[in-house]
């Protein structure tokens, strides 16, 4: 069995919401047990009276961290498929500062306010109203915030990745740091007059309590982790080289631009479109619905391994590399766009129309022109035909600069007698971005 279960297709979107509810119950239960339903207890953290926030939060962090490390290390969990909120250093720090200020003024953080509201705290209910109003206000302020919030984004970045220190060593360091912080916190509680219960204490207790048992266990696992190597999966998928070769030879995993265009127009495209080009090229133009993903972010960006994916790059070379990379990572349903984006441009956006020798060719030309217009391109007309004036309804602009991408308004609508394909509509909005799953907090 492979985890994360959801990304390996063990259950679908609907069941994932049931899982969300069940995990939420556990989360809320333990938060309440730790005293996070009380604003006074939470705020006491910042007056050194009661360091429960630090204790619960960091015990939670190190438990999950050690768990993630070992489950990944033994090959059960694929760590590269676990979503990481992209690092944006400036925004992370400014947002953290605001959050800390809001925490002490409001008395809660978003998760604990839900628990507090559930246990009857009226201030928490008011806090929740404040937060929903604030979320609306952020929306209105977003256009002016967006620029610097997204500035100097590093993408998914981990401490081991940035520092070069092995993952397991950092796990061990964090556990040691947390225990030192707990002892210091309890010392602070004693100094400030808060009372630490001896049974729960790490500080000044010389016998082995249940708490010490928990931390010694975590410490042991963390120290072994420091020596046990990387938690990321190596190449663990068994690939049938012959099958790969056959697929490559027959082109069974190729999708031609014309096929894709037809499916997009008909709304029958089942592929998730991944644009592997640079963000600049993507912003300039891309196939409607495509997502811009860099090669390194590829496995984590994909939703489930069983989802059909269509890759394209400028000339197809990078897509071919990504195809092999994903195959090697165990994604079975990966295809590439034949000819890459260049092929799309050549065959769909600005196709060279056939000479309108007869009725069939003329209809075919109209069809291609309509498709090109649908995607915001302009068909190229063979010079001879253009000279003979046999292609009515083409604006001069399209003739002068045939390869230039023109807006659909510059193209005259095809004559009404043409019934296939459907009349061009406004270029389809990249709806995939709207439907994209949101994973952040």
């Amino acid at each position, binding site marked *: 069995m492979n985890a994360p279960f959801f990304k390996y297709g063990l259950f679908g979107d609907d069941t994932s919401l049931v899982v969300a509810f069940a995990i939420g119950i556990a989360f*809320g239960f333990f938060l309440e047990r730790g005293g996070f339903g009380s604003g006074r207890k939470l705020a006491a953290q910042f007056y050194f009276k009661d360091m429960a926030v630090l204790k619960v939060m960091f015990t939670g962090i190190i438990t999950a961290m050690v768990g993630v490390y070992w489950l990944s290390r033994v090959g059960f969990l694929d760590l590269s498929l676990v979503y990481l909120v992209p690092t944006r250093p400036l925004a992370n720090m400014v947002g953290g500062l605001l*959050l800390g200020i809001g925490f002490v003024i409001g008395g809660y953080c978003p998760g604990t306010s839900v628990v507090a509201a*559930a246990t009857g705290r009226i201030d928490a209910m008011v806090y929740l109203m404040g937060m929903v109003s604030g979320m609306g206000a952020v929306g209105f302020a977003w256009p002016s915030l967006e620029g610097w919030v997204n500035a100097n984004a590093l993408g998914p970045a981990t401490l081991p990745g940035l520092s070069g220190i092995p993952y397991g060593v950092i796990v061990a360091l*964090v556990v040691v740091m947390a225990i030192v912080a707990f002892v210091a916190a309890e010392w602070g509680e004693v100094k400030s007059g808060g009372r630490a219960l001896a049974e729960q204490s790490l500080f000044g207790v010389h016998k082995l309590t249940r708490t010490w048992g928990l931390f010694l266990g975590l410490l042991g696992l963390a120290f072994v982790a420091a020596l046990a190597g990387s938690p990321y999966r190596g190449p663990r998928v068994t690939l049938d080289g012959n099958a790969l070769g056959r697929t490559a030879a027959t082109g069974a995993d190729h999708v031609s631009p014309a096929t894709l265009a037809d499916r997009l127009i008909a709304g029958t495209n089942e592929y998730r479109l991944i644009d592997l080009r640079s963000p600049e090229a993507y912003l300039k133009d891309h196939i409607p619905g495509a997502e811009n993903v860099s090669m390194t972010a590829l496995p984590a960006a994909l939703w489930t391994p069983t989802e059909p994916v269509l890759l394209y790059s400028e000339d197809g070379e990078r897509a071919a590399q990504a195809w092999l990379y994903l195959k090697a990572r165990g994604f079975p349903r990966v295809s590439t766009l034949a000819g890459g984006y260049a092929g799309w441009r050549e065959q769909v956006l600005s196709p060279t129309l056939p000479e309108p020798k007869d009725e069939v060719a003329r209809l075919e030309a109209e069809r291609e022109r309509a498709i090109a217009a649908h995607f915001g391109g302009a068909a190229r007309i063979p010079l001879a035909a253009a000279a003979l004036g046999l292609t009515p309804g083409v604006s001069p602009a399209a003739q002068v600069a045939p390869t230039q991408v023109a807006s659909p308004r510059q193209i005259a609508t095809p004559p009404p007698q043409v019934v296939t394909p459907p009349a061009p509509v406004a270029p389809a909005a990249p709806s995939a971005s709207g439907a994209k799953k949101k994973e952040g907090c």
Partner: protein
Amino acid sequence: MSNNTHAPQPYWNPYLAGFGVGLALLAAFVFMGRGLGASSAFAAFAGAGVSAVAPEFAKHHAYFADYATGNPFKEWLVFEVMGVFLGGLVSGLLANRTRLTIEHGPRWTNAKRLVFAFGGGAIMAFGAKIAGGCTSGQGLTGGALLNAGSWLFMGTMFAGAYGIAYFVRKQWT
């Protein structure tokens, strides 16, 4: 069997509660390949509210467009937060800790507390949206995944909280 024998029970050992929180978080990683969160659920509600009032405006707004098409009751975090509510409710009732009260220090009034709660919630919304997560989504989740941005976030969060704590001390102590 009278009510006064049902005094609130003491809270759990915080390390044990933290261990439970860690296991819930680990379950989220194993089942879903994602962590826990909270603030985005409220962003979804705010977004749904705005797009219910002004659908055309929301559809073309850089921020609200994300919420204009979706149903908040099909969001993962919304269900998770509903679960948090039920889990907190059951835990609070089982420990006789559920009381309809307003919490503040002896030198503060209820009205001031509610104003501060509302304001704090609004500040929190800005902080969470800018940081890309709250104490759960960035702090717990990112912390456990050794996410670089999350550790920066936690540093400034504690700094901000300790920095402001002195100025609002009358609210709590």
